[in-house]
């Protein structure tokens, strides 16, 4: 491992080694900029292409062609000449282009004229009773175990929730011979009816739609027990998960399992953009906050910082790669390496492709809209896992006069734990909005401050 670079200067710094980050780095490098890419993991790929450079043939086969296609971008990145800081935990991004990170137990800092933030997405929290018990993981987490450690559940597993990743995981498990005890789907008839309004648009993205249909059909053929329109989900168990209760088809049911994988979509990881005090909009279809950016992904009011990939709004891996390239082009133009004409002619086909890639989104967003009860849970459910604050506690603070998440932080420490609101922020905003009868947009979000990732006092002291 090379020594810590402090005070190094680059034309472009990219945070995040997923498809967007890698693409931005490659695009900028190809036009002669000096580029550094920082990522927490030891290898490229982000989450979607996690471990792609070290995946075995068997893994590639199980995980499917979409995952395998990530190898191409990884190869381009690795031969691009960009500096790759692995295992680098970025704890602060400054408006002035300074990046503070922790690597190998030492703090480092560098300066970049422009920055592309590509920290992608995370799974939406799934606050139901018992969701904090050992044995409950996100479906994305299980997929990471599969990709990065070749691990799968040792007993027939329960998948619960909705969204493409859940079904994809089920399909991957089938291919791997992992038995699925139940797939408890919260999607119901009303979702199909509403999504039908976007079907024509979705048909324009026929290849993607077809992939999804094939996947669902494989699950059916695999005789995976499917429960549709599931409500009243609750994990059972006292010290660890033992099963899940739910209502489906008018009947109360329960399934025993020590591993329950929950998923109801992914949301942009906005810690950096909030910490930069960038403006965000509440997207009522995707039910999340997205940073306000221009056509190149440049943050409004922050002309040297861009967001590319799922971090600017959920679009998937292929869209992320295209957005990374678009940001990279603008970065090169601003740096004077290409003129506006060259930038625009390179961008045109990318934009056309991006539009195509995003065509399926409205359909998916409506069809797999997470249920209100699974986003704004009953009083007894833990919302802030770190500080163990319940939905009922938050509603109580609203009754006492709290109008937003920062006041609830004061009242009950909600959002003050190590995860800094990553797993409770969306829930808190929505619970307050619901209790007050206003839109989440009006309620706002936590004030996010560095350190975005923990640093020790000793490490910070070395900064002085």
């Amino acid at each position, binding site marked *: 491992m090379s020594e810590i670079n402090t005070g190094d200067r680059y034309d472009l710094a990219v945070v995040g080694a997923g498809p967007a980050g890698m693409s931005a780095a490659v695009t900028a490098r190809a036009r002669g900029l000096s580029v550094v890419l920082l990522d927490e993991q030891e290898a490229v790929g982000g989450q979607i292409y996690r471990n792609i450079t070290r995946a075995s043939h068997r893994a590639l086969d199980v995980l499917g062609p979409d995952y395998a296609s990530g190898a191409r971008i990884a190869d381009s990145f690795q031969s691009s000449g960009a500096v790759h800081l692995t295992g680098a935990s970025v704890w602060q991004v400054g408006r002035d282009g300074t990046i503070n990170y922790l690597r190998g137990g030492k703090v480092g800092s560098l300066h970049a004229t422009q920055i592309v933030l590509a920290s992608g997405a*995370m799974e939406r929290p799934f606050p139901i009773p018992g969701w904090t018990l050992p044995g409950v993981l996100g479906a994305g987490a299980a997929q990471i*175990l599969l990709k990065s450690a070749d691990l799968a559940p040792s007993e027939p597993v329960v998948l619960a929730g909705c969204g493409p990743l859940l079904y994809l995981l089920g399909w991957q498990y089938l291919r791997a011979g992992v038995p699925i005890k139940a797939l408890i789907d919260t999607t119901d008839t009303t979702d199909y009816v509403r999504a039908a309004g976007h079907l024509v648009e979705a048909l324009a993205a026929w290849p993607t739609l077809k992939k999804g249909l094939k996947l669902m059909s494989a699950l059916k053929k695999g005789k995976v027990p499917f429960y549709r329109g599931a409500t009243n989900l609750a994990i059972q168990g006292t010290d660890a998960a033992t099963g899940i209760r739910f209502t489906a088809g008018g009947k109360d049911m329960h399934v025993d399992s020590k591993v329950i994988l929950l998923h109801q979509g992914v949301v942009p990881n906005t810690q950096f953009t909030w910490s930069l005090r960038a403006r965000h909009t509440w997207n009522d279809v995707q039910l999340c906050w997205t940073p306000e950016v221009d056509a190149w992904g440049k943050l409004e009011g922050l002309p040297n910082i861009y967001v590319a990939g799922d971090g600017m709004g959920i679009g998937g891996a292929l869209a992320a790669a295209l957005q990374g390239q678009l940001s990279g082009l603008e970065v090169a133009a601003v740096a004077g390496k290409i003129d506006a004409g060259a930038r625009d002619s390179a961008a045109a086909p990318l934009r056309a492709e991006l539009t195509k890639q995003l065509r399926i989104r409205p359909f998916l967003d409506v069809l797999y809209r997470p249920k209100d009860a699974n986003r704004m849970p009953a009083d007894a459910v833990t919302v802030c896992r770190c500080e163990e604050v319940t939905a009922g506690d938050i509603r109580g603070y609203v009754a006492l006069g709290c109008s937003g998440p920062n006041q609830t932080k004061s009242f009950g420490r909600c959002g003050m734990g190590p995860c800094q609101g990553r797993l409770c922020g969306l829930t808190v905003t929505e619970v307050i909005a619901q209790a007050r009868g206003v839109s989440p947009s009006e309620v706002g979000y936590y004030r996010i401050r560095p350190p975005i990732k923990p640093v020790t006092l000793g490490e910070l002291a070395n900064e002085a």
Partner: protein
Amino acid sequence: MATNSLFRPLSGPSTASARPVEIEFDGRFLQVQEGVSVAAALLSAGVSRFRTSVVSETPRAPYCMMGVCFECLVEIDGQASRQSCLVTVREGMKINTQRGPRALIDGTEAGNE
């Protein structure tokens, strides 16, 4: 591999590329896969409780596997509150669960009365 692990390797314990690595966990010696995260290694070795929560000391285990949930915190080689899903396992690592809030001084209460 422990028979009560919630997760097991797909390829079985005899994959050619895997060379087991020995780590110490809460005083026990475990054989785990090389090159995986500490969280993955512990899960595959049958650890289902990584720590207890700081408020009510209830058991917690990994949830997100990507460094955002902070549930997988364990003490690694003397440094507490490490996110085990972000640390690659190494031969000879000493790992301990955390019970409640961590003690900066070896579990004793440094009373100042």
